């Protein structure tokens, strides 16, 4: 009985029509998913993971793709087996959302900007489960609580753009889980999430699987997550399945060269223990690597003092300001030339807002930002533009931050043209070189954002930020969507540039292992404040703030035999960063507990 697969993918082939002729998204993939099983799909970025899953939903047609061959067998709730590849869309409609749920990779664009979260959540419930409005809302609230969104009641009435990247992702997850589907396709569901919440979500999925027998098709690049979750693993590479097997087998006895390379590239927490400075990763198969630690300089590049950013919360028909989101509350830090400061912290704690505030992409309420001695806050719009030559940003959601109507060449060329750095042939060469460095084929220069996989888009965003050789790069989850092999390359690239050009990074990430590898200093944020700030070694090896300690504990380990127990996780609910208009926040005060190692003494809410 158990051997009766829920879904079988046989020789799937998907093609896309582009103006340069057809492109093969998936060449030949076959695997099956059994009820109650979690199958993880890992693989190179762009290998066809998302395309396979979209094909299973038959949504690929709407994106310009075409199932050119193969069968997609699915066993329905009533026992019938149908070939999804041939089912008509009206029948698919009763399957989608109800029997197969899907979590999308890019949370920003996946949500309708003009409807409240609550509306979008309840829709499917009322549709498939026939709930009335109140019931559906109750269930939606329940779902939001399950995905651990702080203040779920208020979120229901908020609009997607008012949520942080992670919160949006969790809304999308909640939406997919809403109808308790029999098959859940999760495309990088935890990519934008910090470890604590990731752990919660994984636990939630696990519970779902155990309790309702839901099968999960889990797409991720994060080997630690694979190790924690998977029953079986499918490895994909360049449009083909290259390996499949039980999770222990894959981890312990990888067969295919790619699988081996993948596993070898996984960064592990604790690897850097005892080392004072970050150093590039050793890449397999490459011999001529420079693995010197990157020291950086003692010269201050960026100095941030008492930075505070708040967003108004609107209510009522006329959407008046009723309160403020204290997204960033009195944070101060400095970054030296050639060094990396990482910001870690729970989703929604204000990391992105802090990064954006530095570039004044959102206007901070108060505070000072000095870049290389220049007072950023005082600049007029022209000077600000000039100043941005020295600081660039990689956005968290690469898809949303790329103009859908411009080809990648033009998008990467844009900053160069803006500042008149290069022209003509030189410009093209530079961009081609950038593409080489982020490991994208040059033919992609002619493509458009929607024709790329998530990871490929992210690499374009990185290339764009690197184009100008700025002094400071704010990298907001810059490598989170990349598979580990590419991630390692990109991280190495970033460090290489740092060593060469004395670049500084403000590195925003939730991946503690990555953070450990790249940073000189680490700031831990909680509810808009930095609760702990200090040299990486000090913070990682000797976390003092209770929140930091909890965070460290939640980091998953890439070992299938060492799974974390759900019971180990216990997090406090996150308090609200929203305060009524006129609320005075207390200033942040710190205690120095070691050389340059500070912890917050003001009540942070944790």
């Amino acid at each position, binding site marked *: 009985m158990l051997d009766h697969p829920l879904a079988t993918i046989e020789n799937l082939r998907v093609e896309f029509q582009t*103006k340069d002729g057809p492109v093969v998204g998936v060449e030949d993939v076959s695997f099956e998913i059994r009820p109650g099983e979690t199958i993880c799909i890992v693989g190179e970025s762009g290998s066809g993971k998302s395309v396979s899953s979209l094909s299973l939903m038959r949504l690929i047609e709407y994106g310009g793709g075409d199932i050119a061959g193969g069968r997609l067998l699915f066993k329905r709730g009533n026992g019938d087996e149908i070939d999804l590849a041939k089912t008509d869309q009206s029948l698919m409609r009763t399957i989608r959302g109800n029997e197969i749920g899907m979590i999308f990779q890019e949370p920003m664009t996946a949500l309708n900007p003009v409807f409240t979260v609550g509306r979008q959540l309840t829709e499917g419930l009322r549709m498939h489960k026939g709930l009335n409005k109140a019931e559906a809302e109750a269930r939606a609230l329940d779902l939001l609580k399950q995905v651990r969104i702080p203040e779920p009641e208020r979120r229901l009435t908020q609009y997607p753009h008012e949520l942080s990247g992670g919160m949006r992702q969790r809304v999308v997850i909640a939406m997919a889980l809403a109808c308790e589907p029999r098959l859940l396709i999760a495309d990088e569901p935890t990519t934008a999430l910090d470890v604590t919440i990731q752990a919660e979500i994984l636990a939630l999925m696990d519970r779902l699987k155990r309790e309702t027998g839901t099968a999960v098709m889990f797409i991720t690049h994060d080997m630690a997550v694979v190790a924690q979750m998977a029953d079986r693993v499918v490895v994909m590479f360049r449009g083909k399945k290259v390996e499949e097997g039980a999770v222990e087998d894959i981890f312990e006895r990888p067969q295919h060269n790619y699988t081996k390379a993948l596993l070898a590239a996984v960064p592990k927490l604790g690897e850097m223990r005892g080392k004072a400075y970050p150093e590039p990763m050793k*890449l397999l198969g490459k011999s001529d690597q420079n693995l010197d630690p990157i020291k950086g300089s003692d010269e201050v590049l960026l100095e941030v003092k008492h930075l505070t950013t708040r967003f108004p919360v609107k209510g009522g028909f006329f959407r008046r300001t009723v309160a403020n989101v204290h997204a960033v509350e009195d944070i101060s830090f400095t970054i030296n030339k050639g060094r990396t400061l990482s910001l870690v912290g729970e989703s929604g704690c204000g990391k992105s807002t802090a990064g954006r505030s530095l570039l004044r*992409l959102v206007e901070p309420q108060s505070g000072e930002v000095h870049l290389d001695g220049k007072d950023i806050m005082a600049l007029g719009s022209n000077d600000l533009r000039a100043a941005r030559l020295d600081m660039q940003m990689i956005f968290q959601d690469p898809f949303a931050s790329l*103009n*859908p109507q411009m080809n990648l060449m*033009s998008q990467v060329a844009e900053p160069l043209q803006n500042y008149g750095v290069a022209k003509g042939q030189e410009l093209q060469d530079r961009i081609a070189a950038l593409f080489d460095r982020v490991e994208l*084929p040059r033919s992609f220069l002619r493509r458009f954002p929607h024709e790329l996989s998530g990871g490929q888009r992210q690499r374009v965003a990185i290339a764009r930020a690197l184009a100008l050789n700025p002094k400071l790069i704010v990298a907001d989850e810059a490598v989170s969507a990349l598979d580990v092999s590419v991630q390692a390359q990109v991280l190495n690239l970033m460090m290489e540039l740092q060593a060469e050009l004395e670049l500084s990074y403000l590195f925003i990430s939730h991946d503690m292992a990555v953070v450990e590898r790249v940073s000189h200093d680490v700031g831990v944020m909680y509810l808009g404040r930095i609760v702990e700030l200090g040299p990486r070694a000090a913070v990682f090896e000797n976390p003092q703030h209770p929140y930091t300690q909890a965070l460290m504990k939640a980091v998953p380990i890439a070992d299938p035999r060492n799974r974390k127990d759900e019971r180990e996780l216990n997090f406090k609910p996150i308090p609200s960063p929203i305060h009524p208009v006129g609320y005075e926040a207390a200033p942040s005060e710190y205690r120095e507990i070691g050389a340059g190692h500070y912890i917050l003494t003001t009540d942070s809410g944790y």
Partner: protein
Amino acid sequence: MTDEIQAIEALQDNEPLKPHRSQWGEVWLQFRQHKGAMVGGSFLMLITIAVIFGSLIWTVDPGKLDIRAKDYRPIYTALWDSDAKTGWKHPFGTDQLGRDGLANMLAGGRTSMAVGWAAMLLSLFLGAMIGVLAGYFKKLDGPLMRLTDLFLSLPILPLLLVAVTLFRQPLRANFGPEGGMFILIVGVIGITSWMHTARIVRGDVLALKEREFVLAARSAGTTSRGIIMRHLLPNVVSPIVVSATFGLATAIITESSLSFLGVGFPSDFPTWGKMLADSVSRMTEFPERVILPGIAISLTVLAVNFLGDGLRDALDPRIRGR
């Protein structure tokens, strides 16, 4: 298991690279593949060539009155009515004063097309510019939109009369009676018809500028000008294209009503709109006199519409190649 793991090479192109094309190059390429756009475009081209060079082939003077040959029916009437007054001398018939229909269609088309296009482009330019500026720059929004309100509420007729009073003489002196009139008409139509476009574009821009890629462009140091030209305008082509189609039709029709007000071209200067308007009273007897210019206007507008569809699709990478 000690055998060396091979490094994973980056994805390589397996075909030689095609040369890079600019954004507009891409659009053009795409545009050329759009069936509707090509049909519309070639039709428009045909009409344009016909009205520009047609008079070289059909050399009859459109203003020439031949009262004996008045009220000729178009040649096709002979198909069902052998008694009809037809002849190859006047394939499209003649009007009540014996002016040749075909020659008038050609000459009228020249004026109508010129006025239509020029006025439409002017109004689009004004509309798109004001709309984008108002939507993008918060400071300009108020003043520009109030300006739009003002223009929307100005009564057109007095405005026209004032324009004529003030500008006809100087324009006539500088550009001749017809050239001066052309500028005046185009100016007047353009200036009184940009407001819808402006408001629609502004509405779209207001929403667009909150998108993250605009933020990203700003952080990449794109100037406001660049953001407008590269990121906002291509994303608002849809409404602009629709406005363009309507703008063309309205301009052609408006031109004809202008000449009633004595603001338009001299009465012996044919245009499609005027031919249509003049013949309405003889609609039942000589339907061709309304239908021919009517069809010409409609088809031109239709062609522009298809062209616009093509342009929009061409600018939209998601529909490309499909």
